[in-house]
């Protein structure tokens, strides 16, 4: 029995085993790993949540949202304001709920707009909320120096982020398999037809947008302590809207694991290269964004799939050639 057949038969088992190994690794890591790597993993997990949540909405509906930074920022500010007054788990929930409330409102009014207008609107919204938050925080609440957050145990933060990541992935997994997931798939397939088959497409999109925002807000709330110092203008940085997009597209939007791969790669590169390269990092980011859009629209997973097909074709031909020879010799 050859390797490929083994792999396909026990595929589910292999995937489950791999996931369990990763989980074991991540949960035990703080016990022996040094702080730098613990923080790196936390960052990568956070990026995963953002990329996966973004892909969940924008990949399914085809509406490109640039509002990620707004929802993420809301979560950060929630921690900035409520830290110390409320228990951390509650703050995380509040961060997620606030972000989702915002998403619900925006979704209701904008999801009937055409795609490009939705993109511009969400972009403008991030900038707007950043400006407003800054104005309120600095000029009305007089927090001119921003908010300082107490040092958090890196291991604790990692566990929270890991928990959020697992919850996010599980929820997305179950949505995809539910009838709601079928409705979303059909909206992505042909929205007009979906609506004519009885699907309230507007509400479906609004709900999906809202759900994706919960994860983004929670991620912000959890990550805030790692920033140590929080300011409104930094919390709402539109760059945080682009990175999830790049990660998702780079990793490959069609699959579940695409954004995860993109997040891992990007997260690692961001942490290791950003401080060294400074402006060049951003220039390279722009270049990679352009290159990926132009040449890798299906991302890495798409590339691998294409390569596998081509490789499979080559192997098949080679096998056929061998058989022909055999027949020729008899």
């Amino acid at each position, binding site marked *: 029995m050859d390797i490929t057949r083994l792999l396909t038969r026990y595929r589910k088992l292999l995937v489950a085993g791999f996931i369990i190994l990763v989980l074991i690794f991540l949960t035990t890591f703080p016990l022996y790993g040094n702080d730098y790597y613990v923080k790196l993993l936390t960052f990568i997990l956070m990026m995963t949540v953002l990329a996966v949540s973004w892909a969940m909405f924008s990949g399914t509906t085809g509406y490109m949202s640039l509002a990620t930074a707004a929802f993420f920022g809301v979560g950060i500010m929630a921690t900035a304001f409520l830290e110390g007054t409320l228990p951390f788990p509650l703050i995380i929930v509040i961060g997620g709920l606030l972000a989702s409330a915002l998403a619900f409102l925006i979704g209701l009014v904008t999801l009937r707009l055409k795609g490009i207008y939705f993109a511009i609107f969400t972009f403008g919204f991030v900038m707007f909320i950043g400006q407003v938050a800054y104005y309120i925080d600095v000029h009305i609440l007089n927090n001119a120096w921003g908010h300082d957050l107490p040092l958090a145990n890196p291991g604790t933060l990692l566990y929270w982020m890991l928990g959020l990541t697992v919850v996010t992935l599980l929820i997305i997994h179950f949505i995809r398999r539910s*009838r709601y997931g*079928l*409705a979303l*798939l*059909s909206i*992505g*397939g*042909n929205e*007009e*037809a*979906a*609506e*004519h*088959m*009885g*699907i*309230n*497409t507007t509400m479906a999109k609004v709900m999906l947008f809202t759900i994706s925002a919960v994860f983004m807000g929670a991620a912000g709330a959890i990550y805030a302590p790692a920033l140590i110092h929080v300011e409104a203008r930094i919390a709402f940085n539109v760059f945080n809207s682009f990175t999830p997009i790049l990660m998702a597209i780079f990793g490959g939007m069609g699959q579940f694991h695409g954004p995860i791969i993109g997040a891992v790669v990007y997260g690692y590169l961001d942490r290791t290269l950003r401080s060294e390269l400074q402006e060049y990092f951003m220039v390279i980011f722009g270049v990679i964004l352009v290159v990926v859009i132009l040449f890798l629209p299906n991302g890495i997973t798409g590339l691998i799939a294409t390569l596998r097909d081509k490789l499979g074709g080559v192997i098949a031909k080679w096998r056929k050639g061998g058989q022909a020879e055999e027949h020729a010799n008899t």
Partner: protein
Amino acid sequence: MRILEGQGVSKYFGGLAAVSDVDFHIDQGEIVGLIGPNGAGKTTLFNLVSAAFPISSGEIRFKGHKLNGLKPHRICKMGVSRTFQETKVFGNMPVIQNVLVGAFFGSPKRISAADAAGEASRALEFAGLSAMAGHLIQDLTLVNQKRVEVARALATRPELLLLDELMAGLNPTEVSEAMELVTKIRDTGITIFMVEHVMKAIMGICERILVLHHGEKIAEGTPKEIATNKTVIEIYLGEETRAGN
């Protein structure tokens, strides 16, 4: 019983009237055809019934209920389903799932997964697609994609089915098969309202025909009446002459 009724139905795009003051009615169990030259407003009228876009003025009633202002998904759940001129199947899922969508969401009440699956297989069988349930849409021929659209619409358990140019692009054998399918559908109790250019189909299975021209209804009657109607012949002959030039 009048299952579908329209009074003074009009639709303006900017200053242009795509449909102008059209009165029409369809009785339950009928197969009614809608014909007219290109740009006459046929698909627009369909789009007004299914609420793909809002009506400018007039009223459309389904089983006595006003459809004005309702969204397409509500109308579907009320019992009106349709196919589209440019076949709008869900290209990102296999055939069975396409039909499942109709089964799940076309019913006004929440339906169990088992019931939906049953509904979907019945619709597939009715449309002759049981063998292709697992196939991807891209692998299907045009005529089979149209069948999928029909099966999907049937899975929503409609009382009224709107067929928009079902026969377009089909060869004569396929047209005859489609005509059989449409009659079969009507025989299960579903009323059919169909837009068509293929005269053989219209004359063959419709009991009544409405003729639109420049958005207005210019004739209505049985196939024989329409075939001998002077105005209708003129506009179609006129079309041919212009096409010939």
